[in-house]
């Protein structure tokens, strides 16, 4: 892995050199409205995948727009592929990026916390006492956690004894340390909240990465127990197939999954005795990775935008504009969208956040220039890696018809589980799994570059 990491670092440098060698405008070759004198002011709140993409593309497409990005942290850590950090397959620094790339595009980056938004006066106020007037406000605040939903849990416990690591960073490293310290024969519990939650396949990929670590680090008798508040999950047949083949699955295997119907939902935790309590049972763990329920980040929630189940922000399909507040757009994990009636909601993924950001940008550029709104298209690609040579994905495509999101089944779906026919299934050749494990890394490098470089 270290050799691979060194090579990747080199490749990144050569890539940047190649980009610099090509002349700016021609390589970007996006219709450029440099001469447009709209001088519109856009404030973007939140510098994750969604917010960074929105800020960058606004400047790329119309350099006359005044773009301010407000973000607490000075460095971003990608949640996608952070499960590989827990198993030691990846260094956390390969997931980290700063905001210099955005500065280069002329984005004003302010490291501060938004304390108030006045949608009537269109002013954003920060903890640092600064005020920012806007013509359009893009909120990409991610999620905030509801610790009170699990009795006995708290933010303080999450930072010390019971990490959720559902925002990549210090807790990811803490969880890794706890895994390393776990004795052989120990139990690693992953408690999954009721959906929708950030990164639908994340808990199950994490189970595989934890099992991968145990298998090759003298913990073959370890148990990874998933206690789930749901009765199904993303890419389920692909995960179950891989778990079974790689780590053993079920009561006798290394990985075990307990659905909500089987009393899997954790309602209480006792940090002292390291016990998770469900409706009727209790489970002691050596490591407890408790992912609490979460909701739209508080900037959006405090504004009253989280109208969907009091958790997520509803937006307009053609523009991602809030259905509650004019000129405020909500993207990324904080929003809800997609074909809800058929249970085909937008997955809360980095890729989705970025395509939503691009929809907002295309819409705003047209609006500022007095042009008709472009027809949006929403895509998602999400890889899960269960072993260094075993990955798979799900892709999604949504279009907007008659003002509604339409899930396009033909352009969506998971990697094949089997080949052959239903009656005579054949195993999928291993090269497919290997390719998608490799593509996951290529995807990561590209989304980081597309959003932040």
């Amino acid at each position, binding site marked *: 892995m270290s050799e691979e990491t060194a090579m990747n670092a080199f490749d990144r440098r050569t890539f940047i050199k190649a980009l610099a060698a090509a002349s700016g405008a021609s390589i970007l070759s996006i219709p450029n409205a440099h001469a447009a004198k709209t001088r519109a002011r856009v404030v973007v709140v939140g510098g994750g995948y969604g917010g960074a993409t929105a800020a960058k593309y606004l400047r790329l497409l119309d350099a006359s727009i005044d773009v301010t990005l407000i973000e607490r942290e000075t460095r971003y850590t990608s949640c996608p592929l952070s499960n590989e950090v827990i198993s030691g397959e990846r260094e956390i620094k390969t997931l980290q990026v700063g905001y210099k790339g955005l500065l280069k595009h002329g984005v004003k980056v302010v490291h501060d916390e938004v304390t108030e938004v006045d949608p009537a006066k269109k002013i954003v106020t920060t903890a640092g006492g600064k005020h920012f007037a806007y013509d359009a406000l893009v909120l990409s605040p991610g999620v905030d956690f509801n610790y009170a939903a699990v009795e006995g849990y708290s933010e303080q416990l999450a930072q010390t004894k019971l990490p959720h690591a559902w925002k990549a960073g210090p807790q990811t490293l803490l969880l890794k340390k706890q895994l390393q310290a776990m004795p052989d024969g120990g139990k690693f519990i992953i408690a999954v909240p009721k959906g929708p939650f950030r990164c639908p396949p994340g808990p199950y990929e994490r189970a595989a990465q934890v099992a991968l670590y145990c298998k090759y680090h003298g913990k073959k008798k370890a148990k990874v127990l998933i206690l789930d508040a749901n009765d199904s999950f993303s890419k389920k047949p692909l995960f179950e197939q891989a778990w079974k083949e790689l780590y053993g699955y079920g009561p006798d295997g290394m990985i075990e999954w307990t659905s909500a119907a089987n009393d899997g939902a954790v309602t209480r935790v006792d940090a002292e005795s390291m016990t998770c309590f469900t409706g009727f049972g209790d489970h002691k763990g050596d490591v407890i990775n408790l992912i609490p329920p979460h909701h739209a980040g508080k900037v959006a929630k405090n504004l009253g935008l989280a109208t969907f189940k009091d958790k997520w922000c509803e937006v307009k399909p053609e523009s991602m504009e809030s259905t509650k507040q004019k000129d405020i757009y909500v993207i990324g994990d904080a929003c809800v969208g997609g074909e809800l009636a058929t249970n085909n909601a937008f997955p809360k993924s980095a890729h989705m956040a970025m395509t939503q950001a691009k929809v907002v940008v295309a819409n705003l550029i047209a609006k500022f220039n007095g042009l008709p709104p472009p027809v949006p298209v929403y895509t998602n690609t999400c890889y899960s890696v269960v072993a260094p040579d075993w990955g798979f994905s799900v892709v999604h495509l949504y279009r907007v018809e008659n003002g509604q999101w339409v899930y396009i089944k033909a352009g969506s779906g998971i*990697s094949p589980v089997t080949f052959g026919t239903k009656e005579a299934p054949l195993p999928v050749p291993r090269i497919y799994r290997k390719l998608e494990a490799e593509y996951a890394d290529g995807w990561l490098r590209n989304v980081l570059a597309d959003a932040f470089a």
Partner: protein
Amino acid sequence: MRKGAMAVALFWAAGSAMAAMDIEVLARTCNNCHGVGGISAGTSMPSIGGLPRDYLKNVMKQWKYDERGAATMNRIVKGFSDDEIDALATHFSKKRWVPVPQKTTAALMKKGKSVTFENCEDCHGAKGDDPDEDAPMINGQWAKYMTLELEKYRDDGFKMPHRKMKKNTRKLKQADIPAAAHFFGAQGQ
């Protein structure tokens, strides 16, 4: 009016230009994995900006109609109309091909030169910079991606339609694969 603004105005001006704008919107979703301008930043993902239009078109249509295997792309393109595929191919073919010359070793280059002279040069050119609809440029394409592609051609589980590529790649020894990929990956403009 400066050139940029004119281009934008023209884009949005007429009804027929709306379709062109939609392709820009659609093409931007490709950037997530293939980079802005189709210049990939990930070693396992190919750069696609500046590749021959007919090559891009053919490959996407072969995926769409299950004439060519893929791990991911075959699912993605099935949601696009043939017209969209044509427009995406045109869009990316108009970009500039930007090789990302990668580091290699003298030994790999030496071996790569002889392997590619024997097996690749006729169609791809000595430096991989002689493209046509069947054989895209591969100078400065990611070596990792090309290694994976060659493995696809050599694997019976993969449906790859190009007879000659299949035949030639299967003549190679395992050690020839990285040598050929790194040789072309190291080539510049």
